[in-house]
């Protein structure tokens, strides 16, 4: 009896310890995100002293009256250029990390990424069309709006094609995604090649950039992100159950098809929101979930929030590199994510050497 009791106690201890560790990790990463975010605020192609950046930030807090000994341009660089840019990068990173983790879990496929079922390809076609259309009624929002719509239309097309009755067989979905994706890429490439003097702008968009991030963009994509992430986090437990096969998940009381549809819609929404202003940034969506899984294990209840936080940190760091490595020019952020992300991921893979799934 005592041995059984002990074993049970040990197991319980392990579970609670794991749970505590997860909660601690999420908290630590959240603090890490704040630290990274505020540190990179002090670097940029224009040199502003560390203390001054902080003084500027503090001076914007309510009820604080600081003596202003900096120019309005300096203030604007910190609060009008760097801060929204860092926040937008963090939001995009969180969205891509979570969407990647969701798709990998949903399709039980380690190769899945947020762009698997046509989001990026649809967004890209929408964006390049926006580059070429002479319309002016949407002002500067023509490209993001078309990118966002392109993503939604493309994923809907993939979904409708792959649907068999009420079910969406995963293999059919992925194949339809790949086929439609290739079709859209061919159109995008064609438009790019005929775009003449707009080609630099188009290529920058396709490789991702935060160069013109501003508070309006942050405000416009925030609602999509908050709602999408909340929905996905709520479905963390069903996602865990769905790691068994779909039939078993059904027997355990999960409405598999409905869960799939809701998670796909939420992931599509956050990915489309993330890419519409900043372009199709690669690698974050596939590397972050795997890295998190390798370090913290596959439980979606911790995987999803940690993917959001580490995705945000990675993209903030990548964007900082993009704007500070060769000042005053910028390197497309997608180049950095691939350059940093791929070796880091290989390092993790070699160190763990065990099956990820």
């Amino acid at each position, binding site marked *: 009896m005592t041995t059984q009791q002990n074993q049970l106690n040990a197991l319980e201890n392990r579970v609670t310890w794991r749970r505590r560790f997860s909660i601690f990790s999420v908290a630590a990463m959240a603090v890490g995100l704040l630290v990274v975010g505020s540190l990179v605020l002090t670097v*940029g*192609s*224009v040199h502003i002293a560390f203390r001054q950046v902080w003084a500027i930030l503090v001076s914007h807090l309510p009820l604080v009256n600081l003596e202003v000994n900096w120019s*309005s*341009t300096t203030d*604007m*660089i910190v609060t*009008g*250029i*760097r801060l929204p840019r860092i926040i937008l990068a963090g939001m995009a990173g969180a969205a891509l990390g979570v969407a990647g983790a969701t798709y990998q879990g949903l399709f039980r496929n380690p190769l899945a990424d947020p762009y698997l079922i046509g989001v990026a390809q649809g967004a890209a076609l929408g964006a390049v069309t926006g580059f070429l259309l*002479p319309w*002016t009624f949407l*002002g*500067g929002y023509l490209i993001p709006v078309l990118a966002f719509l392109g993503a939604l239309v493309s994923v809907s097309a993939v979904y409708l094609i792959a649907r068999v009755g009420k079910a969406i067989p995963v293999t059919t979905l992925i194949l339809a995604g790949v086929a439609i994706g290739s079709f859209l890429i061919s159109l995008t490439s064609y438009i790019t*090649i*005929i775009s*003449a*003097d*707009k080609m*630099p*702008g188009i290529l*920058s*968009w396709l490789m991702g*950039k935060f*160069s*013109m991030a*501003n508070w309006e963009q942050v405000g416009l994509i925030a609602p999509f992100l908050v709602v999408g992430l909340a929905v996905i986090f709520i479905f963390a437990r069903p996602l865990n159950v769905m790691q068994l096969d779909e039939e078993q998940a059904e027997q355990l009381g999960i409405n598999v098809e409905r869960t799939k549809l809701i998670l796909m819609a939420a992931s599509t929404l956050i990915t489309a929101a993330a890419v519409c202003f900043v372009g199709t940034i690669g690698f974050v969506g596939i590397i972050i979930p795997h890295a998190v899984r390798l370090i913290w294990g596959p439980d979606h209840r911790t995987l999803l929030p940690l993917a959001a936080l580490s995705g945000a940190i990675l993209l903030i760091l990548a964007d900082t590199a993009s*704007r500070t490595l060769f*000042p*005053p*020019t*910028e390197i497309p952020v997608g180049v950095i994510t691939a350059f940093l992300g791929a070796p880091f991921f290989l390092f993790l893979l070699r160190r763990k050497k065990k099956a990820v799934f």
Partner: protein
Amino acid sequence: MATSLESPSTRIEGDFLFLFGNDLARMDLMRRFYFLGSIILALLIAASGCKSPVPQGNITDDLGRTVQIKGIPQRIVSLSPSNTEIVYALGLEDRLIGVTTYCNYPPEAQKKLQVSGYSTVDVEKVVSLQPDLILADSIHKTEVIPALEKLGIPVIGIVAPSLDQLLADIELVGKISGKQNAASVLVASLKQRITAVKEKTAGASKPRVFFVTWHDPLWTVGRGSMIDDLIVRAGGSNMASDLKANQTIDLETAIQRNPEVIVVLSSMGDQAVSYNFLKNEPRFQATDALKNNRVYQVDSDIFGRTTPRTIDALEELAKLIHPELYK
């Protein structure tokens, strides 16, 4: 923008239209004109046959390639709008048998057979035209030029990152096509206009100029580019002269450097996307250029090419940078 530089060809065409007026009395005059013309032509052919040096031999193009030219080219294909404009300016349009879909100046160029897009060249079509000279661009360096060269067609790559190089190129094309005189006359008049701008802006202040070719991310032009040369010669200082030719520039640096004049390239000829963006971007409002309402758009067809019209661009730029000198 007034095109003050008419190519000699357009002027001659204008005279023909005048002669073809319905005044019948002019018919006689015309016949005489033709008679005289044919004699001059015969003399010219005889002269070129015996004493003018047939430009045979090797020349080095702007890509550093050595090209052998045999005889005077009679069938010319242009693979860039800049080259097409140079060909017309030298009065070689009758020998021009192929152009690109972007060759829109002079307007007559659009009626020529199109054999190429921006970077995609229909090599088969080009070869079928049996050209004896192809005027290419730097974008054709890696694929198109070797392919055409292999087929035995002389290809000259023309890339002009400065006004001096442009003038040298005009003379080069003139020389190999037997139009030395037209080329020297043209180059002399262009040089005169360049000097006029130099004299006008000498001694004036040198405002910081920010030249924007795209707005998101901000693309600008640094040293080693035609635009940089034009800004300096027009009496400005290029805000991005520490960068190389075509580069992105960080928004915070662009604002910190506080441009006094912002010149934005239009897109695809006349679209004002980047101009509208910069005019309305709140974060640029703090710069001197926006405060003093000195944001201008220029035509990408003129500023994006290197042709005799580049001197128009220089004059326009000087007027934008120094309006006080051109009152």
